[in-house]
Each structure stands twice: as structure tokens, then as C-alpha cells.
């Protein structure tokens, strides 16, 4: 038995505890250094495990409680390649966020780093565990850390965003717990394999189906899929930038990772669940991709824009999962990592704008980004990658997903990628190149003044963004057959489905859509009347979308119940 599996979880926890206990005695920079080293060590440890797991998952029984006579008494970790790779990516993203946040929070002692380390440990535990309740515990550690970090800046918008986030996600946790209660009442077990065997004996049982519905809703709330997506923009837009990097880069994909864990180890033998997932999750993913893209396009608060683009791309990942195919799963896992790296870099650039230009409003920042042009290059590259530039990890992922997707889902993918990429490119053009019409007085930002700590050197903030983008491009040459092997392991040795169609044109369609949208928005004052009419036609749609994203927590909870009802329909 390998000794590695507990280390990347328990190690950061112990260090966070010591950091908190010593917070009043330690010199100022200790928190930064310790947190950075811990994140890197956790990442290396998970990478090591990913290599070890090539010949089969590393199984670790806590407390030495190996199953006896088929009965699982304790909690196990089963470290497969997908989980270990994703955990390694999470460690790396945290390291980048901690470098980006260097000196960001001077005064509230090491509390920021304590929360970040706990946040990371929760995510890594979530990826590695093989027990349903343990999964919930780590999910909850992650959520609680996220709640606290969102409101960290104590502005009134940050606080109400954090409150909406906390209420909706806490309800999601209780739904998860309800699902765990139902499946435990039926099976009397919590280990994934034991549950999988139990589900196989009576796959059509309404209790099992209801457990799946509750668990999936809980995870989809975290993954911010339509109609659970509302909290995300409120929270991601107001969180401190280093925290937004993690939120958009990893936390949303973690929710989808949870759905994947449900679909394969636990409910693999339930054809009704898989049939419902094939329709409902596919529809939800497509709706999220389109609505997220449309919402991103009509934002001018740059972080809120990026937050909606996260909804859109998480929708693309959900489409990949809902295809229930080995190749598509391999693509989805690749896409999760690739998107996390790119989105992390983009939020880092948004943080740079907040720190150096003292604002986050796209119109207000017009042309102000010229002195920090390297950040503009990073943002433009990120926008192109979001739009589907055929290079790097995201492209590898999308081409695998697209190979088996039906045509209407492909259209949603193109729209999502095109709109979000177009929105980011538009911001790049306006902020860093001064394109677009000059804003009049009436275009004043509707949001409050924001600024993040400014006296950090530009290179320190830019280095993590550049590193993340370089990884998103560079790692693609090293993956080889890893995604396919990892997906096969994840699905329990599934045979590859029929090879899908190659669709190389797809990325070019979404890329040109993105460029066209960005150009339309930046130069519509010079274009013909036809283009102006087109923009006017869009107005009522965008007004409805804005009104639905109301910011009132009661609305969000009503939509959560609607989502539950959708699941009840799909499974009945």
C-alpha cells in the first residue's frame, strides 16, 4: 500500500491548523511562503500518484479498515489517474493564486492562507475519496472556505454576493446530504463500490433514482448549471481576484467531477439514471453554454463577464459528461484542466486591472490598459483560447467532446465558445487598445468603485497568468494517451465506443463567431444600419436575461426547486 494518498489532504490541513495557532507570533511573510510551498508539495505528491496509478487505482484504507468479507467498515481513498491529475492541477492553480496574492492581504494575519490551504485540502480530498459521505465532508470543507473567502473584502456588494452564494450552496449541501440519507437507507453502505453493487441489484428503485436526483442537484448547484447558475456571477464577480482564480478555475469543475463520480462508480448499473442523464444533463449543459455565453456578452463588469463565461464553459463540460462516452469523458477531463488554466489566467489579468487601473468596468477602462500591454496579450490569448483556437488543452478536450456530440449540442458549444471568446476579445480590444466608441457621461459605471491593493509589482502578478497560459498550451504536447487511459479507468475499464467523426471545422466556426461578435460590438458605430438593427433586436432578450438574474436569493431558491422538479420529470 502506497503511503502517499493521505498526504496531500492531511498535510495541508495540519499546516493550516499550525498557521492559525501561530498566527499571532509568526513574522509577516511566513503565511505566503508556507502556503506556496504546501500547495506545490501537494501538487507534486498528486502528480506522483498519477504516475503510480497508471497500472490501476491506488487504494488506501484509513485506519487500516480493509473490507472484511466484502463489508466496508471504514473510509477508502481510491486514487485513479483522473482524480490524481485533477488534484495535481488544483495544487498548481492554488500555487499560482498564492503567488498572485503575494502581499495582497497584509493585515488580517495569516487568515487568508489558512482559508486557502483548507480550500485546497477540501478539493483534493474530494477528488481522491471513494466514500460518499467523505465526499460530502470534503465538499463542505471546500464550500465553507469559499463562503468565507468571497466576503473577505467586506464591501456591501461582496457581502450580499457572499450571502447569496452561501444560502444557495448550503441548500445544495443539504440536498446532497438528503441524497446520501436516501441511498444509505436503501443500501446500508457508503463506499462507492458497495453502493454500485447495491444499485445493480435494483436499478429501477424510486429511492435510488431520488437519491441520484438529490445528489446530482447538489453537485450541479456547485457547478452552476442552468437553472442553478444564478449565485455564481454574484459570488465570482465580487470575490478577491486570487480567490476568483480558484472559483472559476477549479471549484465549478469540481461540481462536475462530482457528477461524473456519481455516473460511473455509483450509478453505473442504473440504466434509467444514465438515460435521464443523457437527455436532462445534455439539455442543461447546452442551455448553460448558450445562456452563459449570452450573459457574458452583455456584461461590462469584467469579472462578472468572466464569471458568466465560466457558466458557459461548465455547460460545455456537462455536455461532455452527458454523452456518457469514454472518448467524451476523456475530452471533458482535459477540458476541465485546460479551461481552469485559461480562466485562472484571465481572472489574474482582471486582478491586474483592478490593482493597476483602479477599476473593473469595461467602458470606464477604455484605453487605460495600454501601459500594461503584456497583460493585454495574455487576455487576448485567453480570449482566443476560450473561443476555440485549435491549439492547447482546451482544443484537445473540445475535439474529443465534439466527436460524439449530436448536432444541436455542437451548435450550443459553438455559441457558448464564440460568445464568451468574443466578449473577452471585445474587452481586450477596448481596454488594452482603446478601440470602440468614446463613452459619454451617461455610460458611467453602474457598479461601485473598486480597487485592489496596488503596490505589487506587475511582473509578480503577470507571472502566474503567463505560467497558466503556457501550461494550457504546452501540456497539450505531453498528454499523449493519458486522457483516454484516465477516462477508461474512471469508467471502470469501459470499452471504447465507436470512434466519432473528426470535426476540425468546429473551432474555426466558433473562432470566427467570436471575432465577429467582438468586432460588431467595438465598431458598430461605424457599421451599416443593418448591424445596428441587429443589436437593437437583441435588446429585449438581454433585458429578460438581466431581469431573471435578479440578485434576490428567494428567486434563486425558487429556481433550485424548479431544477429539482426537472429531475423528477426526467427520472419518472
Amino acid at each position, binding site marked *: 500500500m502506497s503511503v502517499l494518498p493521505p498526504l496531500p489532504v492531511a498535510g495541508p490541513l495540519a499546516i493550516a491548523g499550525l498557521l492559525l495557532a501561530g498566527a499571532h507570533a509568526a513574522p509577516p511573510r511566513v503565511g505566503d511562503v508556507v502556503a506556496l510551498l504546501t500547495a506545490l508539495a501537494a501538487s507534486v505528491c498528486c502528480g506522483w500518484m498519477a504516475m503510480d496509478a497508471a497500472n490501476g487505482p491506488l487504494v488506501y484504507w484509513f485506519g487500516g479498515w480493509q473490507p472484511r468479507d466484502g463489508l466496508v467498515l471504514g473510509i477508502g481513498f481510491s486514487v485513479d489517474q483522473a482524480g490524481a491529475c485533477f488534484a495535481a492541477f488544483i495544487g498548481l492553480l492554488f500555487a499560482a493564486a498564492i503567488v498572485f496574492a503575494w502581499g*495582497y*492581504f*497584509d*493585515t*488580517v494575519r495569516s487568515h487568508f492562507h489558512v482559508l486557502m490551504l483548507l480550500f485546497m485540502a477540501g478539493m483534493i480530498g474530494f477528488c481522491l475519496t471513494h466514500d460518499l459521505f467523505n465526499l460530502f465532508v470534503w465538499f463542505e470543507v471546500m464550500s465553507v472556505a469559499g463562503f468565507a473567502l468571497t466576503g*473577505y*473584502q*467586506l*464591501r*456591501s456588494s461582496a457581502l450580499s454576493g457572499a450571502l447569496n452564494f452561501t444560502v444557495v450552496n448550503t441548500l445544495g449541501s443539504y440536498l446532497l446530504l438528503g441524497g446520501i440519507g436516501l441511498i444509505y437507507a436503501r443500501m446500508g453502505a457508503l463506499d462507492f463500490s458497495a453502493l454500485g453493487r447495491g444499485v445493480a441489484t435494483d436499478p429501477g428503485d424510486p429511492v435510488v433514482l431520488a437519491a441520484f436526483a438529490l445528489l446530482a442537484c447538489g453537485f450541479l448547484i456547485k457547478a452552476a448549471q442552468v437553472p442553478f447558475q444564478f449565485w455564481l456571477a454574484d459570488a465570482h464577480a465580487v470575490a*478577491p481576484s486570487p480567490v476568483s482564480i480558484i472559483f472559476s478555475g477549479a471549484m465549478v469543475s469540481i461540481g462536475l467531477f462530482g457528477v461524473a463520480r456519481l455516473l460511473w462508480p455509483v450509478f453505473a448499473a442504473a440504466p434509467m439514471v444514465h438515460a435521464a442523464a443523457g437527455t436532462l444533463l445534455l439539455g442543461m449543459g447546452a442551455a448553460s453554454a448558450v445562456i452563459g455565453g449570452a450573459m457574458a456578452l452583455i456584461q461590462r463588469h469584467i469579472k462578472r463577464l468572466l464569471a458568466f463565461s465560466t457558466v458557459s464553459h461548465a455547460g460545455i463540460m456537462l455536455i461532455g459528461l452527458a454523452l456518457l462516452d469514454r472518448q467524451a469523458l476523456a475530452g471533458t477531463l482535459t477540458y476541465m484542466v485546460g479551461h481552469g488554466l485559461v480562466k485562472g489566467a484571465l481572472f489574474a489579468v482582471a486582478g491586474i486591472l483592478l490593482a493597476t487601473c483602479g477599476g473593473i468596468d469595461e467602458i470606464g477602462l477604455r484605453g487605460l490598459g495600454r501601459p500594461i500591454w503584456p497583460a493585454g496579450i495574455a487576455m487576448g490569448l485567453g480570449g482566443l483560447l476560450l473561443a476555440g483556437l485549435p491549439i492547447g488543452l482546451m482544443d484537445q478536450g473540445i475535439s474529443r467532446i465534439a466527436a460524439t456530440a449530436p448536432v444541436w449540442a455542437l451548435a450550443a458549444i459553438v455559441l457558448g465558445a464564440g460568445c464568451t471568446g468574443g466578449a473577452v476579445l471585445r474587452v481586450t480590444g477596448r481596454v488594452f487598445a482603446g478601440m470602440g466608441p468614446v463613452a459619454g457621461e451617461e455610460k458611467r459605471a453602474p457598479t461601485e468603485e473598486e*480597487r*485592489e*491593493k*496596488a503596490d505589487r509589482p506587475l511582473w509578480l502578478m503577470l507571472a502566474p497568468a503567463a505560467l497558466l497560459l503556457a501550461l494550457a498550451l504546452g501540456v497539450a504536447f505531453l498528454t499523449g494517451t493519458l486522457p483516454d487511459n484516465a477516462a477508461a479507468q474512471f469508467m471502470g475499464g469501459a470499452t471504447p465506443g465507436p470512434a466519432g467523426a473528426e470535426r476540425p471545422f468546429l473551432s474555426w466556426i466558433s473562432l470566427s463567431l467570436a471575432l465577429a461578435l467582438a468586432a460588431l460590438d467595438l465598431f458598430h458605430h461605424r457599421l451599416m444600419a443593418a448591424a445596428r438593427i441587429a443589436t437593437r433586436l437583441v435588446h429585449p432578450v438581454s433585458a429578460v436575461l438581466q431581469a431573471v438574474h435578479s440578485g434576490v436569493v428567494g428567486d434563486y431558491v425558487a429556481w433550485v426547486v424548479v431544477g429539482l422538479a426537472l429531475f423528477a420529470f426526467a427520472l419518472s
Partner: protein
Amino acid sequence: MSTLIVVLLLLTALAGAGVVIARDPRRQVLTMAANGLVLTCLFMALQAPDVAFSELAVGTAAVPLLFLVVLASIRMDRRLKPGDESDPDGAQ
């Protein structure tokens, strides 16, 4: 035995509804403490003394106390002046 559990389950349903119906937060604190007490009794009846113990300490005492403190603080109106809405951790 069985009637006791039935009665306590019905009481739990009522107490939960009571917490929701008490729209005035000050009255709600009382209904919350009552809810905690009912849950404690239910847990005892369901043979879960450990859980009942924690529910008594947390649901009947600690959490209502926090609510009371928050309500007192809100009624004191320790509002910040508009100019005070500055960032705490040097994010200037």
C-alpha cells in the same frame, strides 16, 4: 413507544413550520429554541442520545444565543457612516 414517536414527529413538523411562520426575528428566536427542544426529544425517542445532547447544546442554546446577539447588535444600529465603507485589509 410508537405513539410517542408519532407525536414527536408531528410536533417536529409543527415546530419547523413555526420557525418559518414567525416572521419577526425576535419571535423566531423563541420558536427556534422550541424547535431545538422538540428535535432533542425526537432524537432521544429515536435512541440517539449523543445526537440529542449536541442538538440540546447547539440547537437549543448556542445558535439561538447567536441570533439574540445579532438582533441586539442590529437594534443598536451600529451602522457605519457612508464614508466608512473602506476596505479593511489594505486593499486601497
